[in-house]
């Protein structure tokens, strides 16, 4: 495997709606891991994600703790609604938290009227545990979940049908 992974999906939605779904905490709390993500959308701005009550309950029931901030990074480039470049580090696990920041690029391009081609490029040099996590497990309910492929599949379901996959 190379140190770069690429994920692409086509979404029937406006570019603005896709941008909002990726960067607005109310929207990021609606799909995939359902943890809200907070962005300061300017060069040098901070981004972070907080643990959900469900994550806390699950952790408490299983005898370990989750940190308040489960993911962090820095915005390197924000060009709404087309391009977002940021660093990315998962803090929920000590192994990934100890790895260097990885680099994540979102590109939103209109492929035909009303359809956006969304490409995620995630560069993970020196971060093998992070790379394994984002690659995902075929079973989204298994350890680490389904990675970016599952996140994008769930986002598509939310934007195009208004429902996440578990409700479909």
């Amino acid at each position: 495997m190379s140190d770069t992974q690429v994920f692409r999906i086509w979404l029937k939605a406006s570019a603005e709606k896709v941008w909002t779904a990726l960067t607005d905490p109310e929207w990021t709390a609606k799909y995939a891991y359902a943890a809200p993500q907070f962005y300061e959308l300017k060069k040098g701005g901070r981004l972070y994600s907080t643990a959900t009550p469900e994550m806390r309950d699950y952790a408490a029931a299983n005898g370990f703790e989750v940190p308040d901030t489960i993911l962090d990074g820095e915005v390197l480039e924000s060009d709404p609604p087309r391009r977002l470049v940021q660093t990315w580090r998962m803090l929920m696990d000590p192994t990934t938290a100890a790895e260097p920041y990885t680099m994540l690029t979102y590109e939103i391009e209109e492929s035909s009227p009303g359809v956006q081609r969304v490409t995620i490029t995630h560069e993970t040099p020196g971060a093998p545990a992070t790379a394994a996590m984002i690659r995902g497990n075929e079973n989204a309910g298994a350890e680490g979940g389904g990675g970016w492929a599952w996140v994008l599949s769930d986002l598509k379901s939310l934007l195009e049908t208004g429902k996440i996959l578990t409700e479909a």
Partner: protein
Amino acid sequence: MTDDDRVFKALAAPSRRFLLDLLFARDGRTQTEMESELEMTRFGVAKHLKVLEEAGLVVVRRSGREKLHYLNPVPIRQIHDRWIDKYTEKHVATLIDLKRTLEEES
């Protein structure tokens, strides 16, 4: 042709599945690198890669003068989710399961 039709048509050819196998083993390869693994003309490999790219199964990324090919697992994930995922449990626990697994391994 729908997106699904394109994916299934792309997967229907053994040579194209072999190209995906190559990228699954190690992606970020150039076309030239992949040509040496197949008994096929340069034109044939290019044609198959184009079909895979149009189906969304391969993403081409430029790096300097080179065109690197990456396996995009998202369309296969969507096929999975269409018939399997709705029967699985809610996913909130998944990241925490990862934490536990990695801690047990280390």
